[in-house]
């Protein structure tokens, strides 16, 4: 049973939360897809519920009189660069379903998993800084591997806060250039930015040969207008205010939001970007499993090698 989002979000320590998610991924009641995606044999380990039967080494199991599963090491490590949206719109809603906290946990867990698989993982984001002319400063943790780097990376993710605006397109462009060789670019954001500019930046990164993942974080609370009568909504990023009434504007807004998400999805598909939606009401463990099962972190240059039984 995966840990619920309420439980995971309530854990203040990001490293602990990420570890719990990763542990859940490994021991999940469902089949675990993270036995390894490389071609090189790494070790045997006892069979756990959820492991695919094709990964069971039947000969060794017969010798030891117990089920053992083959774990494979990836032969070619990939560079994974996490691009995390730190704009104020991510700080919605207050509470356990907050998009930014969810994105932090997802990034941390993903980094953990990727580092375990031998990938080099880095981080790029932009934080507000009044001393800079553009108003934002890039925070970059170069992709590396190792336990020490994992702690540094998780600490860097934990220090981030959602505030101000976020130059999405510029940050994605910068990330695609920072990945020197072909790597995995995971952009975690709500994408409430200049849609066309972000889409072009993602497409450009995909054209450069990167495995681009567009993870759109969506909170259930933003799919529809807040319940109740007339109320004044304040834009978390621009500070603009609008007086709305769900009774008159609710359907139109819900439709517009669905259309917005659909535009993101279709645009990503067209540009060769792997799009996925991260619903903050779904347990992070389950969400990550679904995401990685569909497209494991192998990197574009790494051939997907089937596990050999």
């Amino acid at each position, binding site marked *: 049973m995966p840990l619920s989002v309420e439980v995971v979000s309530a854990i203040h320590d990001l490293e602990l939360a990420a570890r719990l998610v990763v542990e859940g991924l490994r021991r999940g009641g469902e089949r675990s897809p993270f036995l390894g995606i490389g071609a090189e044999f790494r070790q045997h380990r006892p069979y756990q519920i959820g492991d695919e039967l094709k990964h069971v080494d039947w000969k060794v199991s017969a010798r030891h009189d117990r089920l053992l599963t083959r774990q494979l090491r990836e032969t070619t490590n990939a560079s994974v660069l996490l691009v995390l949206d730190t704009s104020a*719109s*991510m700080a*919605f809603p*207050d509470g356990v379903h907050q*998009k930014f906290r969810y994105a932090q946990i997802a990034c941390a867990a993903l980094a953990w998993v990727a580092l375990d698989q031998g990938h080099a993982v880095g981080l790029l984001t932009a934080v507000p800084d009044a001393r800079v002319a553009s108003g934002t400063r890039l925070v970059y943790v170069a992709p590396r591997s190792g336990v020490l780097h994992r702690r540094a990376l998780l600490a860097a993710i934990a220090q981030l806060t959602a505030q101000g605006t976020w130059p999405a397109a510029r940050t994605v462009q910068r990330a695609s250039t920072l990945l020197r060789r072909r790597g995995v670019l995971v952009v975690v954001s*709500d994408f*409430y930015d200049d849609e066309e500019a972000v889409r072009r930046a993602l497409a450009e990164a995909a054209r450069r040969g990167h495995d681009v993942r567009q993870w759109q974080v969506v*909170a259930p609370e*933003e799919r529809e207008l*807040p319940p*109740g009568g*007339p*109320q*004044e*909504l*304040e*834009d*978390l*990023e*621009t500070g*603009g*205010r*609008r*007086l*709305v*009434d769900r009774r*008159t*504007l609710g*359907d*139109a*807004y819900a*439709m*517009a*939001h669905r*259309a*917005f998400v659909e535009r993101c999805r279709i645009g990503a598909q067209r540009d060769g970007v792997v799009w996925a939606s991260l619903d903050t009401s779904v347990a992070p463990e389950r969400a990550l499993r679904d995401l990685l099962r569909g497209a494991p972190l192998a990197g574009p240059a790494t051939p997907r090698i089937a596990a050999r039984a």
Partner: protein
Amino acid sequence: MTFGAPLALWGLALLLGPVFVHLLSRRTTRRQAFPSLRLLDASRVPPVSRRTLDDRALLLLRVLLVLLAVLAAAQPRWSMATMPSTQPSARVVILDTSASMTRRVAADAAREPRSLLAVARARADSLVNSARLALRIDTHDPAAALPAAAGWLSDAGGGELVVLYDGQYAVLHPSDVQMLPEPISVRVEVVGVATDRVAAREDTLRVAVHGVGADEDFAWLRARVEALEPDVQFVRADPLLGDPDPLDTLRHLTTYTGLADDPLVQETRRGAAPRSGRADVGAWWAVRDARDSIVLLLREGEALEVQPVTAPRDLETAALIAAAVARFCGHRHIPRHEYEQRVVDSAGLAALQRVAETVPMRASVAVSDTRLARLLWCLALLALGVEAYVRRRVAPRTVTVEAGA
């Protein structure tokens, strides 16, 4: 600027009303953070009323509305010249109590008419209470009281002299002000020039008889006047306590009716020293209340004891005068504004103002001007209209949704 009804300025406390209303109304809609309003901008559905951005404009309009109404109710007056910069330590208020001050006026339609005298007395009380050392003189002849007031002020080391009157003809002359010694500043305040509140004169003139005499004498007088002027209603008024000096009302009447040169009037005015043979009854008449009636005031000669009116000849004179006045007024239909122009000594006031301008630090003339109050009322109504328009205009607002979004 001074105020005729300064108590109305307490109404400024009403300014808190719009502020509270806005504060409360703002609380009715709660504010909530939302990740982005971009998708709302693309909507095409009529939402609820929107007042947030226009709140300030509405608040300003409502505050302005209350402010204008309160200022109008306070009856502001222009001061034609500046007052001395230092507040005088001593002040003499000379209050005109002549007959013309009994006219009843109202500052606006919503108020009951008040007599000029009541208004002036309230103002005099306010002036007296605001000075450290004050003296109030009630007189029917303010000009005559000026020397005594000036002497008192000189003894007090200088100060301010305020004359409250209705701007009537020949009550105050510029030379009266100019002759005052240097350390005394003079302020002339004209109260109650409210032309629209003077009641309309009817076609038939009501003649009231006030005096001392036997009923049969008045009956005779009435019959005689009505015989001369059938349109005249002859009403016997009860003797009034505290009647103004008949000479004042006589002067008033002769001024505005143009009868000052009438031989009968002149002869009557000389009634203060009646000729022999006509002195048993002083045939003094006057207009007591200039609004709607003429009081035929028959008074005993000052030197005589009260006696029944028995001399038909003097009654005949009084009747002739009354009939002449009635005929004049009744046939001329003096319009209200014309009447007011005649009652108020505009030229005299202008002369006083010129004096105030030439001696700017010594004197000023404050004219109670209902036009200013009326202007303020009009502006308040205008603000009310604009407020209603803005409120209605901002209520419905349409935003658009991108159809295929």
